[in-house]
């Protein structure tokens, strides 16, 4: 019986996996930033039911959510150069493949983040909105001071999971020939006929990374969860809550 797993190979593989870690991190980083900005925007369009745009946003989100990312990657990888060529005449098909990955994963993350953010906004009871209006807050003030702080807190765990999940989801990069961590694990497995060790090495890196990311997200979460740290008396009514928040803002 051959041994399917040798620790020595894991140590052998690790440096090679670390060498391509920047590729994975770049995809995750760009996708998260693009996804967050676009995701907030899409969520806003949909919650506020902006005509036409909210319908377009809904179809976009539905498409991204509903189809395998492989298909989305194909559309971006083969489709974007065609569209750009048709519009501007520039040939971008020879661009670095990673740019197409940024676009594909950015759009994909945006759709999923927008749903998380949207559901967080909708989970805020309607009476808070009435209260904000009663307090004379303008809409931007309401979003910035009432809704956003709560949204961040509610959405943060899901956001953390999505970001950490993205670490592994970048593996499709290898399909079009960009070598990320999972792709490298796969390539090493194909070269040596030892697949497990590559994935175990990748898991090692991901566990460390997700631990670090988790700490970061937990710290943000902790900062955001001001009301759960308040004395119970301060939660007496929503208005005292608002007043307290306002006072905090002035102090800052």
């Amino acid at each position, binding site marked *: *019986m*051959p041994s*399917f797993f040798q620790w020595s190979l894991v140590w052998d593989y690790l440096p*090679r996996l670390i060498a*391509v870690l920047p590729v994975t991190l770049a995809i995750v980083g760009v996708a998260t930033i693009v996804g967050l900005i676009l995701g907030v925007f899409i969520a806003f369009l949909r919650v506020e039911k902006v005509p036409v745009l909210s319908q377009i946003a809904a*179809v976009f989100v539905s*498409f991204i959510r*509903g*189809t395998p990312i492989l*298909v989305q990657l*194909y*559309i971006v990888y*083969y*489709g*974007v*150069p*065609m*569209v750009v060529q*048709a519009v501007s005449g520039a*040939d971008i*098909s*020879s661009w670095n493949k990673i740019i197409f990955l940024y676009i594909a994963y950015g759009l994909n993350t945006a759709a999923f983040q927008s749903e998380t953010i949207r559901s967080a906004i909708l989970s805020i009871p309607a009476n808070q909105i009435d209260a904000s209006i009663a307090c004379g807050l303008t809409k931007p003030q309401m979003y910035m001071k009432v809704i956003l702080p709560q949204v961040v807190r509610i959405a943060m765990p899901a956001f953390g999971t999505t970001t950490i999940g993205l670490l592994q989801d970048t593996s499709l990069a*290898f*399909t*079009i*020939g960009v*070598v990320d961590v999972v*792709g*490298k694990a*796969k*390539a*090493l*497995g*194909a*070269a*040596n*006929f*030892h*697949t*497990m060790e590559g994935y175990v090495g990748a898991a090692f890196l991901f566990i460390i990374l997700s631990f670090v990311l988790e700490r970061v997200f937990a710290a943000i979460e902790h900062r955001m969860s001001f009301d759960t740290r308040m004395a119970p008396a301060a939660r007496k009514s929503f208005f005292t809550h608002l007043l307290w928040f306002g006072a905090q803002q002035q102090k800052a």
Partner: protein
Amino acid sequence: MKTHKPRITLLALAAATALLVAGPLAACGSSSSSNDDGVKTITVATGNDGNPFCYMDTNGKLTGYDVAIMNAVGDKLKQYYKFTFMPSDFPTSLTNLASGKAQIAAYEYEVNDQRKAKFTYGTVGTTKWDTLIISDPKNGPVYQSFDELKGKKVYATTATNQAAMAETYLKSHPDAFKLVYGTYTNEQTVQAIASGAVDATLAPQYNLDLFNSQLKAGFKGSDGPVHKSAAYLLFQKNADKTLMDRVNKAMQEIKDDGTMKKLSVQYLGADYVPE
């Protein structure tokens, strides 16, 4: 109105996906470029985890039999062309070719009529794909023919030559054997056979040698092949005729002068060049 909505949504979905996927590809062309000294850059689509044909070695360098052959062809044609490789998985290599991102594809493509309608094949075969029935003598007899496999479970990896061949056979012999599909790694395939989860798999000789040498499987193959075939290069349907002729001619040359045989021995362990 409300009852009609889902149907309209579905129709819209269908139309949108078809457009999104097909749209970009309808307008594809060749994207080869030439520089000042008249040497054209030709992109060759190939695989990235297809050991021993086209894969990345532990240092990330693209290597394998198909890559070596294309490099040998590139050497012959260096006054006209410079070959660069575009590695991807198997299905994507075909889309890279079809969409014009690549002008040639080299990843062990077998011939059949349906595929001929879609692509132009090279004229010189690179690899014999004579398929054997591979089984573990510890678990039962060494199967020699499809007849002996009646009622047995046979593993095939989706999208491979063997899977396509087995499906063709099953079409004319509906209850010959039960095909188990998967995307197993080599270790899993060996385990599936050794544990008796499947009774056999279909693979060429080089694959059997690899199971036995790399994974110490102790498997046996049928004495003769159950299917004879060969793999070729692929060009686009409306490919540049000069390019095709030059590549085909260079292929014939490296076959005649024994280069191909040498590479086959080096990468595949024996001479698998078709006659």
